[in-house]
C-alpha cells in the first residue's frame, strides 16, 4: 500500500480535486436554486426539478470545459517541455491523459442524463400549470403574460404539448441536437469499436464541434426566470404570495412580481530498405526538431486524402534526417508500401508533429531498463541511437551510466531492421571498449521445438544463430523477478527508470515488479515505472 501511494499520489490527488469540485458545484447550486427567494415563484411551478436541472447544468459547463484539455496534443507537448519543477511527476500524470478524458466523458454522460430528465419534468410542469384552471399560485403566476410583458412561464399557449415547445425553442432544439451528438460519440467510442473499427470512432468523434456549438447557444434564450432584484425589494415573495391568491396579507402595498432571465453563461529525401514488407522512410524538413521517442502523424494523399496515421520516429535527434519504419498492417500501410514500390519518384507526404512521449525522461535516470514488446520496440530505436551519440560526445546532459534493454517478440521477421541496429551498436561499443554500457536480451516468445533444437545444437558458437548478435536469444518470456533482483543487486543505491512500450498485461506485471523491488528506504534502489501507449 505504501508503494502504491508513493507511485500514484499525484493521480489520486488530481482525481480527488476534480471530484471535489464537481460535488461542490452540484451541492452549492442545488441549494441555491432550492432555497433562494428569487426563485420562489419558479419553484411554485417546477418544484425541486429546477434545482436538479440547474445544478447539473453547472457541472456540465465545468466538465465540458475540461474535456478537451487532455487531448490537445500540442498543449501536452508544451507542458511536458516547459515545466521546470516536478518534471517527472508532471510527465507521468500527462501519460494518463486519455484516462482522464474518459473519466470526464463519463461525468458528462451522467450529468446530461440528470439534466435532461429534470427538464422533462420542468416542461411537463410548465405545460400543466399553463393549462390548469385558475386558483393555485402556479396557475396564476403562469398567466401573468396575459396582462402585459411580464412572464414567468415560458409556455404562453394552453393548447400545446411539451414536445412542440421543445422543438420550437432554442434551448429545446439545441438540447436535443447536442444530446444526440453526445450519444453518437459515446456509442462509437466503446472499446470494441475503437479497437476494431478505428475510423468509425475517429470521424464520429468530430461531432464534438456540433456539441460545443450547440452548447454555447443552448442557454441564450433565458427561458428559466427568477424574480428581478428590484421586484424582490418591492414585493418579497413570502409576504406577497398570498396577495396574488386574493387572500389577505399583512403587507399593505404588494406590487405584482416582475421576472427576468438568469444571464446566460456562457479552446524526402528517400525511401529505402524494404525487408519483409517494412518500409523505412527517411525525410528531411527545414526547421524540424525532434526529441527521442516522439511520434509524427503521416498523410499520403496518393493513398487517402483524409487519413493521418501515427508513427514513432526511429531516428535520433542527432542525425540530420528523421525516419520512420512503416510495417504492412492494414489498408493504408499496404497502400503506402505499394505506392512506393510502383512509382519511380517519391509520392507527396505530409507530416504533422512531432508529439511528445514519456521516453524523453530516459536520460535522467542513472540506470534505465527499457522493455519493448513487438512493435513497441520502435521508440527504443530512437532512444538507443541517441544515447549512443550522446555517449560518444560525452554529453553532460546524459546521466545514464547503464542500460538494460529487453526485447520481446514472437519472431524477429518484421524487426530485422532493429536487429541490424543492435548489431551495429554492438560493434561500435566493442570498438570503443565500452562493451558493457548496454546489456540487451532478446526474448522470442513464439518458439517451437525445431528452433529450440537448433539452438541447443549450436550452443557453443559465439554469436547467436537466430539473430547473429553476441547476446544469445532466450526462448520464452522473461522472469521479471529474476531480472529486477539482478538489477537491484548490481545497482543498490541507484534510481532505476523502467520504460515500457507494449501491451497492458505486461505493464501491470512490470508495475508490480517495480513496487516489489523498490526499497522503502529512499536512499536505496528505487524503480520508477513509465509507460507509453498508442
Amino acid at each position: 500500500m505504501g508503494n502504491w501511494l508513493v507511485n500514484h499520489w499525484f493521480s489520486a490527488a488530481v482525481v480527488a480535486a476534480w471530484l471535489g469540485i464537481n460535488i461542490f458545484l452540484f451541492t452549492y447550486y442545488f441549494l441555491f436554486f432550492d432555497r433562494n427567494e428569487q426563485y420562489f415563484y419558479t419553484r411554485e411551478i417546477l418544484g425541486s426539478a429546477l434545482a436538479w436541472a440547474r445544478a447539473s447544468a453547472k457541472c456540465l459547463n465545468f466538465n465540458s470545459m475540461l474535456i478537451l484539455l487532455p487531448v490537445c496534443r500540442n498543449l501536452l507537448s508544451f507542458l511536458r517541455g516547459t515545466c521546470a519543477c516536478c518534471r517527472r511527476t508532471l510527465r507521468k500524470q500527462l501519460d494518463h491523459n486519455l484516462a482522464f478524458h474518459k473519466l470526464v466523458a463519463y461525468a458528462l454522460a451522467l450529468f446530461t442524463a440528470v439534466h435532461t430528465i429534470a427538464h422533462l419534468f420542468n416542461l411537463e410542469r410548465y405545460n400543466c400549470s399553463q393549462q390548469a384552471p385558475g386558483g393555485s399560485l402556479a396557475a396564476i403566476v403562469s398567466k401573468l403574460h396575459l396582462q402585459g410583458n411580464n412572464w414567468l412561464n415560458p409556455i404562453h399557449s394552453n393548447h400545446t404539448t411539451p414536445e412542440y415547445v421543445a422543438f420550437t425553442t432554442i434551448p429545446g432544439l439545441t438540447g436535443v441536437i447536442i444530446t444526440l451528438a453526445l450519444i453518437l460519440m459515446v456509442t462509437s467510442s466503446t472499446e470494441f469499436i475503437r479497437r476494431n473499427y478505428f475510423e468509425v470512432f475517429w470521424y464520429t468523434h468530430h461531432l464534438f464541434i456540433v456539441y460545443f456549438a450547440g452548447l454555447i447557444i443552448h442557454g441564450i434564450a433565458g427561458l428559466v426566470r427568477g424574480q428581478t432584484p428590484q421586484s424582490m425589494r418591492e414585493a418579497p415573495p413570502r409576504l406577497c404570495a398570498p396577495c396574488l391568491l386574493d387572500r389577505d396579507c399583512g403587507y399593505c402595498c404588494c406590487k405584482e412580481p416582475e421576472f427576468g432571465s438568469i444571464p446566460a453563461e456562457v479552446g524526402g529525401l528517400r525511401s529505402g530498405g524494404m525487408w519483409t514488407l517494412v518500409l523505412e522512410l527517411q525525410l528531411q524538413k527545414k526547421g524540424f526538431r525532434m526529441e527521442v521517442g516522439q511520434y509524427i502523424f503521416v498523410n499520403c494523399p496518393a493513398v487517402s486524402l483524409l487519413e493521418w496515421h501515427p508513427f514513432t520516429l526511429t531516428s535520433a535527434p542527432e542525425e540530420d534526417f528523421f525516419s520512420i519504419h512503416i510495417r504492412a498492417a492494414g489498408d493504408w500501410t499496404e497502400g503506402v508500401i505499394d505506392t512506393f514500390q510502383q512509382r519511380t519518384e517519391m509520392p507527396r507526404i505530409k507530416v504533422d508533429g512531432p508529439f511528445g512521449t514519456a521516453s524523453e525522461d530516459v536520460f535522467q535516470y542513472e540506470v534505465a531498463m527499457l522493455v519493448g514488446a513487438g512493435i513497441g520496440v520502435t521508440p527504443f530505436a530512437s532512444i538507443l541511437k541517441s544515447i549512443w551519440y550522446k555517449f560518444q560526445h560525452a554529453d553532460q546532459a546524459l546521466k545514464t551510466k547503464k542500460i538494460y534493454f529487453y526485447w520481446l517478440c514472437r519472431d524477429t521477421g518484421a524487426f530485422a531492421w532493429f536487429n541490424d541496429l543492435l548489431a551495429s551498436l554492438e560493434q561500435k561499443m566493442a570498438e570503443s571498449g565500452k562493451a558493457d554500457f548496454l546489456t540487451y536480451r532478446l526474448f522470442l516468445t513464439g518458439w517451437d521445438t525445431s528452433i529450440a533444437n537448433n539452438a541447443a545444437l549450436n550452443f557453443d558458437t559465439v554469436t547467436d544463430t537466430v539473430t547473429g548478435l553476441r547476446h544469445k536469444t532466450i526462448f520464452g518470456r522473461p522472469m521479471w523477478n529474476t531480472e529486477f533482483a539482478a538489477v537491484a543487486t548490481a545497482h543498490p543505491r541507484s534510481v532505476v527508470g523502467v520504460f515500457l512500450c507494449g501491451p497492458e498485461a505486461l505493464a501491470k506485471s512490470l508495475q508490480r515488479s517495480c513496487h516489489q523491488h523498490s526499497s522503502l528506504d529512499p536512499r536505496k534502489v528505487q524503480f520508477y515505472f513509465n509507460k507509453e501507449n498508442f
Partner: protein
Amino acid sequence: MGQIEWAMWANEQALAAGLIMLTGGIVAVAGQFKGWYFAAYAIAAGVFVCLLEYPRSRRQKGSTMERCGQRYMTAVLKVFGPLTRNYYVRAILHAALAVPAGFLLSTILGTVCLGIASGIYLLAAVRGEEWRPIEQKPRARPHVGDTIKQPPSNPPPRPPADARKRPPAELGGQVNPAAVEAE
C-alpha cells in the same frame, strides 16, 4: 475504411437507444405525464430492443469479444433464423418500433437514436453483412497424461551374445579398398 463492419456500430447504437427509450418511458410513467401510455409502450419496446441487440454478432475476421452472459440470448436468436440474421429485417423492425415513441417528449430521444440505428443497419444490410452467432469452440484440453512420455518399458533390442563380442582391432583400424602409400 473498406473493412468497416457497420453492423457492429449499429448494434451499439441500438442497444443505447433501447436503454434511452426505457429510461424516458420510466420517467414519463413515474411522473404521470400527459400521454403516459406512449411511455408504457416505450418501456416495453426498450426492453425488447435491448434483449434483441444484446448478443453481439461474430466479426468477419478475427475473434470477437462477446458480452457477458450473451449466450442465452444467442440461443434464442438462433431459433428465429433469417428473421434475426437478416439486417434488412432489423432495420425495418427498429424503424417501426421507433415511431410510436415519437409522440412523447420523454421518449423522442429514444426514437431518434433507434432511427439512426435503423439507418446504420440498413447500410450494413446493403453491404451484405449478416448476424452470425458467436460459437464457443470446445477447448480440447489435452489430458495431462498424454503429454507425459513414459520411459520405454522394454530394453533396446540387442544383437545376440556372440555378435556382441568386438572383432579384434585391425592394424590401422580400417580396411582400405585401394592400396594407399604413406608419403
